[in-house]
């Protein structure tokens, strides 16, 4: 969730950094480039002015030398010495004057230019071309100078006449362009100075302020030929040096005289030192700016991001349904607006939620809290263990009212009922509408436990008064189911279910009021479970048939078996047939049970016949089965498919089943009977069937209910009933079977009464299918003799729940 602000921060940071980088780098690049150019240009300018200064300085120096030599040449002593004409005197005076002038070379020339003396040596006197030119100039100008190469060195030559007073000769003095001069020039120009002496395109030597190693580091001899008399300057940037060179030698037109170049130079590193410092400074500034901008971006992102995060948190809280205070945001701009909007939104949501909550927990028609509200209120009650009575109230006959008088009227009834019920409760009590015509009233009964009966009576009095509704007097009638908390229920679910159970029962209870009784819920739950599991029971193999034999009385022979359905529930264990058949009928599932029974019974019959027995099997049909018009046809079809005679199957029906829909029952039974299947009346004597009805039914057999047979031996009334029933049945042509024969005495009595067949524990308990054949095989040895014999004998019998 922090993702959004962080991404925002990153974006902002990135933007700032990129911007700063761009601006800074371009600025720095521009500044550095400009300053570099500037620096180089300055260096060049410096060199150019250095060249100029060098040139001027040399010119000045030449003028000074000229003056100096002229003064010396005019010296009377010097002239006197020359006038002597003695070679040694002349040479020594020349040397002396040269020493005074600081000259490195001195020559004396005759007025016609012939070299007479040259000091310190005469080796270079061959270079007369240079002196001829000098002489020509001197005759023209009274003096002459030349800068030229002589004896491998660069010299400034100065020639002046010696007059005594007429011209008696020329003095030439040469001043070498030596290190000393270079140093002077270097001081004046502030640059390194170098003289390059070249002859015949070859560099003879260099004189420089630089060290000997340094001065040869870069080339000078690559200079292009300088134009004659020019003072052009070339610059060269190479090998870490910026060099400006200019020709110094006086143009003579002859290569042999050599050339002198003067150069001023700067170390590139020195030139660029300031630039380098600037660059370092800029980098530092750049770093600082970047750092500051990153910090600023962080700050800004925080300044914007923090409120955003707070708002996001706030919105999240609103979304989660929580309640929070809007974050304080000191911003009059968008963020502030967003905060205010979110706050307004929260308020709107709260209002809407409250409305929806109210609607969801209240019944629109009556304005009473609804089932949901009831549940939460009950949950509270239970949680706090508050004793109370829960009254579940149903308007009796409401469905009929709706149908006959219309739903609008029904609604009016509901409203009225709601008012009444509300009025019938006291202040702390609560009333809810929990269903179409059902209300729930929760009555606090602290501190004393109330008299339920009195309460009920008082409640009824207040509710069941006639109301005049749309000019029709209506009397409200209510059913009440009551449950006491906390004793009778521990959960809301239980409260609702158990109160409903009680209400259910109230319909049949006296006074239309039922108080929940312990265990009702469990029965109800068991029924729910069984009903639910019934469908699965067949597939899961939980259902099976057991067989109980019917034995003829004279002689005692096993003639038929009654197939009885058994359900072994995986959790509840053995389930009595009475219970689950009833549930199956209620839930409309009996049909598929019957189908299964028919199939299983027929399969068993086939097994009998395979094993050499021809006993028939009887099955029980319910009222629901009889109402199924297609059943007879299906049964007969199945018998036919298996290739069995129809008389192998008998169907048993109870009196009560017959009575539910006598017409359809008669039709179904007639169809069976017509197909050759015997029909027996089961549990005869317990119902209300009349003999007249029996007469009309296609019945061949009566089964006297075991209630009359179990105690037959000791009960004379039963004996009378049984005997007369047998007689009556025989009169009607019906066969009689006695159920519940559990002792030999009863057996003998029944035989004496002329009963046709017996069934009961005395003879055999219902047995599993695979036990039938073995039992049949051993039957003669065990029972036949006893049953056919007269002597009385008590059979110990247990009263197991048995048989339908």
């Amino acid at each position, binding site marked *: 969730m922090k993702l959004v602000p962080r991404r925002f921060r990153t974006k902002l940071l990135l933007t700032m950094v990129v911007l700063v980088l761009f601006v800074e780098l371009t600025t720095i690049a521009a500044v550095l480039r400009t300053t570099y150019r500037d620096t180089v240009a300055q260096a060049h300018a410096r060199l150019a002015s250095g060249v100029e200064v060098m040139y001027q300085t040399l010119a000045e120096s030449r003028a000074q030398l000229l*003056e100096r030599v*002229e*003064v010396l040449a*005019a010296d*009377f002593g010097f*002239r*006197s010495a020359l*006038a002597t004409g003695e070679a040694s005197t002349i040479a020594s005076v020349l040397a002396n004057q040269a020493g005074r002038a600081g000259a490195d070379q001195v020559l004396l020339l005759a*007025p*016609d230019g012939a070299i007479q003396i040259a000091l310190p040596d005469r080796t270079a006197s061959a270079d007369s071309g240079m002196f001829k030119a000098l002489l020509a100039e001197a*005759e*023209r*100008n*009274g*003096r002459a100078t030349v800068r030229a190469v002589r004896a491998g060195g660069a010299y400034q030559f100065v020639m002046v*006449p010696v*007059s*005594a*007073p*007429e*011209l*008696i000769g020329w003095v030439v003095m040469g001043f070498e362009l030596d290190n000393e001069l270079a140093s002077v020039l270097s001081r004046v120009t502030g640059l390194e100075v170098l003289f390059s002496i070249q002859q015949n395109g070859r560099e003879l030597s260099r004189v420089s302020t630089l060290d000997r190693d340094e001065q040869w580091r870069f080339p000078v001899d690559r200079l292009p030929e300088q134009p004659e008399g020019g003072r052009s300057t070339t610059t060269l940037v190479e090998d870490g040096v910026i060099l400006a060179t200019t020709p110094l030698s006086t143009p003579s037109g002859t290569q042999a005289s050599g050339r002198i170049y003067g150069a001023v130079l700067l170390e590139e590193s020195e030139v660029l030192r300031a630039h380098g410092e600037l660059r370092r400074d800029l980098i530092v500034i750049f770093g600082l700016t970047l750092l500051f901008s990153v910090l600023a971006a962080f700050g800004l992102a925080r300044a914007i991001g923090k409120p955003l995060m707070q708002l996001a948190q706030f919105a999240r809280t609103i979304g989660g349904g929580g309640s929070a205070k809007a974050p304080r945001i000191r911003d009059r701009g968008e963020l502030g607006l967003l905060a205010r909007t979110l706050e307004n939104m929260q308020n709107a949501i709260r209002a809407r939620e409250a409305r929806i909550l109210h609607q969801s927990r209240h019944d629109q028609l009556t304005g009473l809290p609804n089932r949901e509200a009831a549940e939460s209120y009950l949950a509270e009650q239970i949680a706090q263990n508050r004793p109370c009575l829960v009254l579940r109230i149903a308007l009796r006959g409401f469905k009929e009212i709706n149908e006959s008088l219309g739903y609008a009227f029904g609604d009016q009834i509901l409203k009225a009922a709601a008012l009444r019920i509300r009025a019938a409760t006291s202040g702390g009590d609560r009333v809810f509408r929990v269903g179409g015509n059902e209300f729930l009233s929760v009555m606090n009964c602290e501190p004393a436990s109330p008299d339920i009966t009195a309460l009920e009576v008082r409640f009824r009095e207040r509710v069941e008064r006639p109301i005049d509704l749309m000019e029709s007097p209506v009397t409200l009638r209510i059913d009440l189911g009551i449950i006491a908390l906390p004793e009778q229920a521990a959960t809301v679910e239980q409260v609702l279910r158990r109160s409903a159970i009680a209400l259910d029962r109230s319909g049949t209870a006296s006074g239309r009021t039922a108080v929940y009784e312990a265990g009702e819920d469990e029965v109800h739950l068991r029924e729910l479970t069984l009903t639910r599991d019934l469908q699965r029971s067949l597939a899961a193999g939980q259902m099976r048939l057991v067989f109980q034999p019917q034995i003829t009385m004279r002689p005692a022979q096993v003639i038929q078996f009654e197939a009885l359905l058994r359900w072994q529930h995986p959790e509840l264990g053995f389930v009595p047939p009475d219970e689950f058949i009833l549930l199956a009928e209620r839930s409309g599932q009996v049909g598929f049970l019957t189908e299964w029974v028919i199939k299983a019974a027929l399969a068993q019959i086939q097994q009998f016949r395979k094993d050499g027995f021809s006993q028939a099997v009887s099955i029980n049909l319910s009222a629901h089965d009889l109402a199924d018009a297609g059943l007879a046809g299906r049964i007969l079809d199945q018998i036919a498919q298996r290739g069995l005679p129809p008389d192998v199957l008998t169907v048993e029906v109870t009196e009560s089943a017959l009575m539910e829909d006598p017409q359809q029952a008669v039709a179904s039974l007639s169809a069976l009977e017509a197909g050759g299947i015997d029909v027996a009346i089961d549990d005869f004597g317990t119902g209300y069937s009349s003999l007249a009805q029996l007469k009309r039914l296609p019945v061949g057999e009566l089964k006297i209910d075991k209630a009359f047979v179990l105690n037959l031996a000791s009960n004379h009334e039963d004996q009378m009933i049984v005997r007369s029933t047998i007689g009556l049945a025989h009169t009607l042509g019906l066969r009689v079977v006695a159920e519940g024969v559990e002792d030999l005495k009863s057996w003998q009595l029944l035989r004496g009464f002329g009963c046709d067949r017996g069934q009961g524990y005395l003879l055999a308990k219902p047995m599993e299918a695979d036990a039938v054949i073995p039992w049949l095989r051993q039957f003669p040895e065990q029972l036949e003799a006893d049953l056919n014999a007269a002597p009385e004998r008590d059979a110990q019998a247990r009263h197991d729940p048995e048989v339908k």
Partner: protein
Amino acid sequence: MPMSLRKACLVASSATLLLVLGLSATTVAAFTVSVNSGTGAPLEDVVVSITASGESGKPRPPAGKAEIEQRNLQFDPPLLVIPTGTAVEFPNRDSTRHHVYSFSHAKTFEIRLYNGLPPAPIIFDQPGAVALGCNIHDQMQAYIYVTDADDWRLTDASGGARLAIPESVSKVSLELWHPRLRGDALTQVVKAPFPEELSFTLDVRPPLPRHRESGSSLQQRFDQLAQ
């Protein structure tokens, strides 16, 4: 300076001419010498002297006295032609002292710093050119041409000089000299009949421009103060 030099020469020439005319009235022949420099321009102040060779029927001009005064820091005249043995005075008419000297072979002398008239005149007893200078005033320069010749003239501004030859003379030795002449004086023997005109070309140095002395502003100011 050229004006004063010319004037000086003119005076000297006139004096000599008068002397020559006075001594020999029997002048029968004369010819004109015209001299130009190497560049073709007429050369002034060339000393043209003649000597009748062999037959000296005519006396040599006597060695007398002459003077070159120093005035306004100049020698006057700047060029003096004298017969050998002439005594020359060097009167100083300036307020400053002068130190007149010569290193020339014809006469080497030196009159150290002096005022007024030196104690003794200098006698030029050998023929030849003598360059005079003042040791403390470099711009002061003068020439004395000492000669054994019978007669001499200086060329005028057009480079011409007219010379008379005595009747008895059949050939003369002609000599030309100029202060800026390169090398020795030019000599030539001219025989009768003498041509009306002789032309010569002398190889002369151009005058040396003076830098230090005349160019110096200090010197000029000093000169002004001195006058």
